[in-house]
């Protein structure tokens, strides 16, 4: 897939689909989300128009190269911490894909369904592999938050494997895997060990 992503593009995706993404992704993690939500609440614009782009929960390792920057390695951070912010971000920016790891909750799933977006995960920790999928750093904002929390604007090529975990139809793959895990614990694991 390639950015800008249309609503139609992402509404075709289902949980479990594996996609590779080319185009522009923008990083925001904890502090970036907090700032973004404050700006959006005041009706202000973010430094980058996220409409049709992918938002990435990541804090890269970077290196200065002349006037610019180079991504040394990059990979996803745990998305659950951004759950409190993501509904507003999806609603107010028009971002079409959120990339992270570890899963997100019902508010994000609701936003994906209502506004047409998906949440995908990249294998956490595979940062050297992923660095080869980042072509260049287009821009950086909010460096006052520190390198991990700054907003990095990246051009990527065939970023992936990304697995769709929340689609725009209300399904959440991790909810399903959790339900099966609970069943196995209560019906198989504990009875076998004599645990109530």
């Amino acid at each position, binding site marked *: 897939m390639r950015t800008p992503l249309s609503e139609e593009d992402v509404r075709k995706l289902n949980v*479990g689909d*594996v996609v590779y993404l080319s185009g522009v992704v923008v990083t925001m993690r904890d*502090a970036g989300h907090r700032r973004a939500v404050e700006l959006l609440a005041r009706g202000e614009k973010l430094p980058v128009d996220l409409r049709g782009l992918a938002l990435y929960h*990541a*804090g*890269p*390792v970077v*290196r200065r190269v002349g006037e610019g920057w180079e991504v*040394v*390695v*990059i*990979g996803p*951070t*745990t998305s*659950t*911490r951004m759950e409190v912010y993501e509904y507003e971000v999806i609603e107010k920016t028009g971002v079409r894909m959120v990339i992270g*790891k*570890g*899963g997100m909750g019902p508010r994000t799933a609701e936003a994906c369904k209502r506004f047409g977006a998906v949440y995908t*995960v990249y*294998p*956490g*920790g*595979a*940062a*050297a*592999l*992923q*660095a*080869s999928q980042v072509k260049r750093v287009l821009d950086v904002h909010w460096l006052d938050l*520190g*390198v*991990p929390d700054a907003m990095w604007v990246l051009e990527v090529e065939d970023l992936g*494997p990304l*697995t769709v975990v929340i689609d725009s139809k209300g399904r959440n793959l*991790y909810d399903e*895997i*959790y339900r*099966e*895990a*609970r069943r*196995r*614990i209560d019906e*198989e*694991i*504990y009875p076998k*060990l*004599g*645990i109530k």
Partner: protein
Amino acid sequence: MVLVLASSIESKLVEATVKLLEAAATWLPSDVEAALIKAYEVEDNPVTKSFLKAMIDNVRIAREKRLPICQDTGVAMFYVRVGDKFPYTSLLPSVFRKALVEATRRIPLRPNTIDVFSGKNPGDNTGRYMPWIEWDFVEGWDLAEVTVLLKGGGSEVVARAKNLIPAEGIKGIIKYVVEAVYEAGPQPCPPVVVSVGIAANVAMAVRLAERGLLRPIGQRHEDPEVARLEETLLEAINRVGFGAHGMGGRVTALDVHVDYAPRHPATLSVAVLMNCWAARRATMRIYPDGRVEYITHPQLNREVA
């Protein structure tokens, strides 16, 4: 003359420690890599397999290009087992601090230390009490064994500890560990290494669990009863079925390590720590003549020689 010697040994140890940090960040120990390859072989879910393949490819790329395996290079923790006859003990804190600043610049490591009150990131991984050092003293040794553990935030947020009621017993501990893994789900980047400490209070339990993270994968506790508990827990956790990154599969944990100290009549304290699949650690020994030997990464000894 003595001062000159001290400063030359110090700079030598700084350089050796930068190399240790680089090994930890970029080169997964062979026991961890072998466990990942085994996980790849036993999984049959194609999505889980594709994730494991990306992880194993990543380990190779990181080693070849000397890049950090994961962008979250953690907060550096040093575990030192130092002999009472080792001559350079007092040099080590400043050696570690200088090496960490240099490694942050050179490898590079991600600057991860943020001041709790000001929110400022100094950019070099230092800060109050950093780098963190845990000391164990070994009587009769004339050497020091230094292990650095780089553990990311994702595997840290799922750590937990509790005082169980003694009546809950070993079954209570098993349940507490399984529930910890269940609640952690995909967050700590499974397949994880689970380390359990059991003791008279939470502080002791955490300390034991922490040291368990340093133990190689596949190495059982020397007490057969504890080793059996490790195997029971490993089997139970893998039946939960999360698999790599929660994509569903047979290998949720690469291994489980347990250690214990006595409990108090009123408490049965348990701590559960997890390390992500990129369980990054590196160990070196420093001998009294200043010579350094890399234990987890013996290939580096050739480069030094």
